[in-house]
């Protein structure tokens, strides 16, 4: 039982990270109907920028909460530039091309980003000393002590705060309204005087900044990153987006939590070597048996 609770806590933390990446997939899919294959690598770049910022601020000796806040802002800002540029260079010219063209272009972009970071930052893994340590311990009398670390609390609370802000942005502001309108009918939205190109750009910027927050959490949580982390995390987050129903924002978060839980439970109870197989199998099973996911709308193909 104690072990289960521990895995539950770990799963929810991991799920928050996946959920934040998944939002980027789901929003881009909702608005332009493509799988942004490079999104996982945007997450990786976010993690690298956060790592560099942590090291730089670590030298100044500023208080930890301020460092966390500044790193968050810096990572979001710089990663958003990457998201924006990738969309402008690789996807925008391909709107209206045949369906697989953007996917192949995204694949190319993903290879470019991965190798670019490998060349610029080196292929070795990058460790970071734990910044937030300690935690609350439960069941101290039993054999297995359950720990809820402060870092986990920080990750979950930050996710909740960002999700609340983000939901507000999408449901209540003009920008969110324009974004949802573009999702439904791009031509009509353009006719009504909305700048569709700009809305799509902003979608990429938002998705990338959330991915960079996930990247920052990843650096803090695992304490070690390399240029290759984006691939697996990207596939898992995409699985989360599909599981929750692609195009649906609460779905992405829900899917993220589910994938996080499945992964930790699988590593805890079945086998740790095959934990990635669990994620991939969930992806395949979901796509085959219920491609609309939990909260998605059925996709009707029109002639």
């Amino acid at each position, binding site marked *: 039982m104690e072990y289960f609770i521990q895995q539950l806590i770990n799963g929810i933390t991991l799920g928050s990270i996946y959920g934040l990446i998944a939002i980027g997939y789901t929003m881009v899919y909702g608005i332009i109907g493509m799988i942004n294959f490079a999104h996982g690598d945007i997450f990786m770049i976010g993690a690298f920028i956060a790592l560099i910022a942590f090291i730089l601020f670590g030298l100044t000796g500023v208080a930890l909460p301020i460092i966390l806040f500044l790193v968050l802002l810096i990572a979001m800002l710089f990663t958003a530039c990457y998201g924006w540029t990738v969309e402008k260079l690789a996807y925008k010219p391909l709107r209206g091309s045949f369906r697989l063209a953007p996917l192949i272009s995204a694949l190319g972009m993903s290879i470019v980003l991965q*190798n670019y970071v490998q060349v610029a930052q080196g292929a070795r893994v990058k460790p970071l000393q734990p910044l937030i340590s300690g935690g609350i311990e439960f069941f101290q009398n039993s054999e297995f002590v359950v720990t809820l670390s402060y870092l986990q609390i920080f990750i979950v609370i930050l996710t909740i705060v960002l999700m609340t802000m983000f939901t507000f942005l999408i449901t209540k502001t003009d920008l969110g309204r324009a974004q949802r309108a573009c999702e439904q009918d791009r031509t009509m939205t353009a006719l009504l005087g909305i700048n569709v190109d700009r809305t799509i750009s902003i979608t990429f910027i938002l998705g990338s900044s959330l991915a960079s927050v996930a990247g920052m959490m990843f650096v803090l949580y695992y304490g070690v990153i390399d240029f290759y982390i984006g691939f697996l995390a990207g596939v898992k987050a995409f699985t989360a987006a599909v599981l929750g129903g692609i195009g649906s924002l609460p779905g992405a978060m829900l899917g993220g939590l589910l994938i996080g839980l499945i992964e930790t439970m699988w590593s805890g109870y079945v086998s740790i070597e095959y934990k990635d197989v669990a994620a991939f199998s969930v992806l395949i099973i979901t796509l085959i048996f219920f491609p609309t996911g939990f909260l998605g709308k059925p996709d009707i193909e029109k002639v």
Partner: protein
Amino acid sequence: MSSELRTIIKDSLFTGLISLALFGPIVGLKTSSKGAGLFVTPSWTPVIFLVSACIIGRFLIGLNSIRKKEIGFISKITSRVSNYMDNKGKHFAITGVLFAVVFPFLPFTDRYIMDVSIMILTYIMLGWGLNIVVGLAGLLDLGYVAFYAVGAYSYALIATTFGWSFWVCLPLAGLFAAFFGILLGFPVLRLRGDYLAIVTLGFGEIIRIILINWYEVTNGPDGITGIPRPTFFGLPFKKIVEDGENSFHTFFNLEYSTMHRIIFLYYLILFLALITNYFTLKIRKLPVGRAWEALREDEIACKSLGVNPTNTKLTAFAIGATFGGFAGAFFATRQAFVSPESFTFIESAIIVAIVVLGGMGSQTGVVLATIFLIGITEMFRDLEQYRMIAFGGAMVLIMVFKPKGILANRKPTITLREHNSK
């Protein structure tokens, strides 16, 4: 100063700002480990170069001096090549094959060139195999390397366990790969294009993870060693010959040379690749080949005309997988060693890139793309990392400027001509 020029300058400066934000942290602040922790060493020179390159590039594009002429020039060349291939394709193909046949005996070919050629031919064969799936049937398969791996491992396991000869194991390897193709294809082929791509990617990774972890059979990350080398119809390429045994060089009364085996491997892969090509060219003209092309163009129309999309796609998938398996068997016998490292996602991406860059569906395009991607970049082997950046960049650029590939051959094999055309 005209207002036009002012906007161009403004755009260029904006590009500079963005590129500074892009390259500043990642290129300019390099993290390196010293002792226990990480340190950041700033290096601003490359950043300055990159940013100024971006500004100048944007400025030139803004002046419109580059775009129309250069891009027009490139597409003119490719469309000319494409036209030429359409008209004279046959001559080109025959010349190419003849050249490939005499290639090992040309004066300038040495061991290194032969090795690279064998690698190129392996990729050509993989490209042709995948072309059936991607080019003809229009299914984006990002896990093709899984079938390559299945072929290589089944060859390795059968050959090391039972000691059967290459020509017995080869069909078995193909069969196993086809079986896996059907196993994967049956449930997933009703999915839409981009979902299919992701699912096949997942499948490829699952196969690789199983290969890494299933120690009892695959020997885990260490791989399988001591795979029998191929023999020339029963004659081994051995230097030291025991009594009563024949080796290739003793049988033909030749001086022993390691090149014999290399040349034999070269002809082996050439033969296998040409079979793949011949098969593809023939099957395109059969009903099933036509059904693939029709499905690629319009699935809904096919369904309403009574073509069973799942079964038709399944045949494409299985046949593509079979050729992947053959190539895998060849890979195993050439290396005499297989390990999961050779079957990562990037291999799949390279094969897909070859097919896509060559122009989906074009057999000659696959050859040109392979020679371009593998051959020319092989010369810059020291710049391996930059090679992959250029590689991904080429994928993006070709999609942006020529979404149909260098030699676009999406023309269906037959079309219904309009009544009054010509």
